[in-house]
């Protein structure tokens, strides 16, 4: 009987049920889309912030001081310590390798540029552009094109295995070099594949594949420093503590959180004789910006949930209110308050579940749409969101119709049937 009541109610009141169902579907769509975007926005913005540059720097442990003014290296090339290029792929073997979006080794060396009978001292910066690597079973590509995305090249990027070079914009202007030229650098004839524009010190340099810089100072495998770009978590009180002072369980928590400090710690473990540190300008401010943006989106999501809860409960209340006559009839035939209320609640639950399912699918695709059109990447939707969303939908429909149902079951059937009220 109960099942039949609910079934017939859906069959005969298709239009009204459809309206309430649409309200629930819309509410759930908006809620799902906003929750999905909110849970993923940190990661998305984090990736956008990587355009500001690497946030970790790995240097040799017992290096001498950097002697660099305005990007001009004044340190004797053989002075100080070096990292070993062969150790670099180990970066991909660290615990947080999925969070490391890229790294770029740097080796600045002094070179002599000969052009039109003139001799000029320049800094040649050896690095990876987009070097392909194999670590274990994984293939990955890394270099300045990932870690320094604001570097622009007119012409072509050199190949990492070639002996082609890039000439910084201001240097190119001084020596009137253009893409396709050949210049003489420390006695080597080199092909200029492009002109580099960075807005920084590199505009006065020659940038070349790492192997060429190593060849010039005759130190195969030498790397002066490595810039590492990693997705990190804004630092908190735990992050700032000295790992040596932490005990077992807290140390594990510190080690397994993607703080800039703990990723630096792991890089140091992975690369022998190295010292890794966060670049405070990037990592500190990144934390502040991320915290603000995440907070804002959470509050906005809250507003979205509120609006959709309101829409759902308003339409549920209207739906119940319109059926006073039916309630009167049921009560006149001897139904108790509980029986009447349970019919309405069953209908509400059914509507919420159906609308919730459709809304979840629609909301997921809406979130994908937002992700693709704004961030050019997919928004990850956790399957665990489905039961949560359905639970919220059922709860909101119950809460929204509760007041109307209470009033309906308390009606005097006589008045309700006469249509007076």
């Amino acid at each position, binding site marked *: 009987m109960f099942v039949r009541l609910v079934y017939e109610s859906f069959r005969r009141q298709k239009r009204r049920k459809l309206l309430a169902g649409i309200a629930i579907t*819309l509410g759930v769509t908006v809620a799902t889309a906003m929750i999905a975007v909110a849970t993923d926005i940190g990661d998305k913005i984090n990736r956008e912030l990587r355009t500001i540059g690497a946030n970790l720097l790995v240097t040799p442990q017992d290096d001498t*001081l950097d002697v660099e003014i305005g990007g001009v290296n*004044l340190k004797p090339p053989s002075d100080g310590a070096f990292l070993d290029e062969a150790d670099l792929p180990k970066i991909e073997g660290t615990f947080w390798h999925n969070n490391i979006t890229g790294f770029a080794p740097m080796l600045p060396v002094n070179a002599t540029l000969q052009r039109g009978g003139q001799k000029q001292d320049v800094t040649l910066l050896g690095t990876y552009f987009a070097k392909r690597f194999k670590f274990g079973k994984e293939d990955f590509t890394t270099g300045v094109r990932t870690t320094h995305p604001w570097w622009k090249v007119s012409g072509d990027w050199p190949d990492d295995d070639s002996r082609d070079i890039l000439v910084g914009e201001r240097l190119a202007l001084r020596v009137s070099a253009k893409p396709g030229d050949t210049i003489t650098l420390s006695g080597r004839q080199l092909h200029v594949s492009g002109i580099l524009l960075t807005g920084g010190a590199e505009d006065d340099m020659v940038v070349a594949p790492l192997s060429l810089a190593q060849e010039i100072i005759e130190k195969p495998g030498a790397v002066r420093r490595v810039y590492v770009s990693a997705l990190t978590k804004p630092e908190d009180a735990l992050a700032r503590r000295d790992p040596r002072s932490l005990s077992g369980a807290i140390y594990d928590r510190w080690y397994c959180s993607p703080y800039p400090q703990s990723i630096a710690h792991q890089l140091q473990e992975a690369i022998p004789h190295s010292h890794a540190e966060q670049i405070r300008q990037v990592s500190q401010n990144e934390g502040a910006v991320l915290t603000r*943006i995440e*907070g804002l989106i959470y509050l*906005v999501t809250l507003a979205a949930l509120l609006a959709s809860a309101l829409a759902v409960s*308003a339409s549920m209340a*209207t739906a119940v209110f*319109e059926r006073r006559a039916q309630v009167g009839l049921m009560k006149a035939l001897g139904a108790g308050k509980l029986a009447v209320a349970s019919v309405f609640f069953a209908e509400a639950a059914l509507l919420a579940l159906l609308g919730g399912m459709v809304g979840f699918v629609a909301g997921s695709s809406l979130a994908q749409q937002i992700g693709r059109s704004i961030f050019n990447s997919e928004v990850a939707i956790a399957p665990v969101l489905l039961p949560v969303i359905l639970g919220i939908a059922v709860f909101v429909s119950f809460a929204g119709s509760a007041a109307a149902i209470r009033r309906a079951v308390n009606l005097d059937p006589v008045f309700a049937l006469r249509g007076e009220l």
Partner: protein
Amino acid sequence: MLVRMLVRAAVLRRGRAASALLAMVVAAAVATAMLNLYVDVQVKLRREFRSYGANLIIVGKDGSSLPADSLSRAESALGRRGIAAPFGMVVARTNDGQPVVVAGTDFARVQQLDRWWSVSAWPAEPQQALVGVRALAVLTPSKGPFELTLQGRTIHLTPEGTVQTGAAEDSRVYLSLSDFVAWTGVQPSTIEVQANGSPEDVDAIMRHLAQAIPAAEVRPVRQIVEGEARVLNKMRATLLAASMLIILTAGLCVLSTLMGWVFDRRRDFAIMKALGGSERILNGFFAAEAAALGAIGALAGFVLGVGIAAWIGRVNFHASVEPRFGVLPWVLAGSIGVTLAAAIVPISVLRCVQPAVILRGE
């Protein structure tokens, strides 16, 4: 008569009228808060990005040093639109002949400009130095006074504090500009500028600075400028999408509540019609009612929404979000539009029905 009908209609059916008004207020509040935030978020986030430090750099053309009055000229060109900090640099030698980069700067300005520097204590007296953590280990591991030599001239310094940034600053020694100029005779070669405002403002400041110091070249720090623009644009787009979704949902909620309410009053409609009310009066009555509801709801919602936006501003950005009164006409027009739309549909349905049918309850 019309006013009395409107007032009595609201008073007699308090429950339904209140719930319709509540839906309207909440929808208008949410819409106001979202629009306010959408307008304000750029300004707020831009301020966060300013803590990345300089977004413009002034250097002498072709590597020459800057004229002596560059800083004051840059500051007068900037006005209150930013901060400028001068830097001069030389390579000095320690007592055992190691090269070290020594920089002269204005500590008070650097403290404002480079807020990410982790500094143990800022020097205040002459002959005090701020020493990078790596430089400290080489120069004076005991943290006692040390000497630096440049072209035969020696300066005695006490390490007042240490600076740690994770970048080139860690290998340097910082002096106050007056000590630096007196010792080296070298004028600052770089001025780092943090210019506030939108990209257009920053461009204008860049042009002003270039005019004020003709001997210098003004360059943007591209990584900061571009990164900021990217993040802000994406954030704005996300917020726009969210605002549209939320406003749409809130609008639909109002629409369904109001339609129910008007539909519910078909008896009033029928009685008025039976008593000889013309179609125009009836339409006018329901339209006036809807518009009044929309206007009252929008005004109350605007106040509430501005409050919500201010609260979000305080909680999330630790700064107030100013009420944007430019948003009010939009919220008002939107609310009245939604309420009118909600009244039109049921009325056009009821118009075709004979009053007798409605009054008989069929």
